[in-house]
């Protein structure tokens, strides 16, 4: 019987294809990733059934933590730069150009205007430390009052970018009077439409919203 000679196969597998796939996925995730912006406080938002997504751009966010401290931020760097220029001029803060640029590149701000200069002069680690004990932006129920610094921030930010959508991101445990202050401030500037940031929860079955979601006509 002739000896059957099996061709000896190499154990090497061609990795090129796998490598291609790996890097394709890598590219996808790299492009799709949007790093979470550095938030000075962690906020647990309440949930709602609302499914309106947060828009990508032109957002003004007022963050309220559980103790009711307020932080203010605008997403666009250019708007932030223009905003701090105006604020400097309006409130005579005497900020240097360097501090203004620091503001434009930073994230949320939660200090009273009187402390803004020293806050911006500090390095990021110190700022982080400061944010833990910061008092937040002073707010009041009267929009025109000087003590209502949030009102000044909102007005100047909207002057720079009228398209700004106002969102409130508040902790579930924040007390209502704090939220009320924001709402009255907004109302003072004749802003009656704004968004509350919430988590998503499922629509409970057997309710009117569930019927609508399922395509049944709402009872009205």
């Amino acid at each position, binding site marked *: 019987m002739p000896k059957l000679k099996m061709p000896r196969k190499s154990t090497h597998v061609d990795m090129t294809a796998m490598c291609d796939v790996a890097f394709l996925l890598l590219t996808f995730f790299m492009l799709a990733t949007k790093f979470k912006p550095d938030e000075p406080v962690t906020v647990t938002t309440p949930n*709602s059934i609302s499914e309106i997504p947060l828009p990508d751009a032109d957002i003004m966010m007022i963050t309220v933590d559980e103790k009711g401290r307020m932080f203010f931020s605008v997403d666009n760097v250019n708007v932030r730069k223009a905003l701090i220029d105006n604020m400097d001029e309006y409130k005579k803060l005497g900020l240097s150009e360097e501090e203004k640029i620091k503001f434009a590149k930073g994230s949320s701000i939660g200090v009273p205007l009187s402390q803004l200069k020293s806050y911006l002069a500090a390095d990021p680690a110190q700022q982080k430390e400061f944010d833990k004990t910061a008092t937040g932006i002073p707010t009041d129920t009267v929009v025109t009052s000087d003590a209502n610094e949030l009102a000044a921030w909102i007005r100047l930010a909207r002057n720079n970018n009228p398209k700004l959508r106002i969102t409130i991101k508040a902790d579930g445990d*924040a007390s209502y009077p704090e939220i009320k202050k924001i*709402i009255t401030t907004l109302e003072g500037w004749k802003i009656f439409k704004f968004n509350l940031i919430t988590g998503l929860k499922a629509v409970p079955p057997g309710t009117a919203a569930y019927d*609508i979601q399922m395509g049944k006509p709402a009872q009205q």
Partner: protein
Amino acid sequence: MAEMDTSSSGGHKKGPGVKKGKKLSTRIDLTPMVDLGFLLITFFMYTTTMSKPKTMEINMPYKDENIKEDEQTKIKASTVVSVLLSKDHRIYYYEGIGDDPTKPPQLNVTYFKPKDGIRDVLINKKKAVEELKASGALGAKDQVTVIIKPDVTSTYEDLVNMLDEMSINDIRVYAIVDITPVDKEFIQMTEQANGVQ
């Protein structure tokens, strides 16, 4: 892999019997590269925030000092449920606007819960309004109106939950209103009557 041939046996002599230099394969082992690729993928997958936060849109009623009293829209008391949000996520509610001092409203207490909570109150109210509409006591355009009055001890979560109940129960007319001293009294009286601290 790529090794230098350091043996000096052959030298540079050419001719028969001289070993040829080893032909190096042009293939590169891609395994480490794949490893690296997947490592980075894992990293990016974990850091990616795919789900965007959702938002809830609210429209506050237009407030203008120049609007005269008689130009304001009037709501019929029989369509109204007033909801008072209080501490410890407690909800007090009563039928009507509660502006008639001669007839103080009957306060009931409830909580946010899927069964027998505020949701059922709203569903029942909706049914009651439908019946009133059918019997002709209310016009076709009348709708259930909920007046939300959060007091100073309530939290933002209560407010969002309440607004969420509005969308869950498809109630289109609602308003967030300041709590009145009268309402505060109602809460106090109810709390005292029930021995709540």
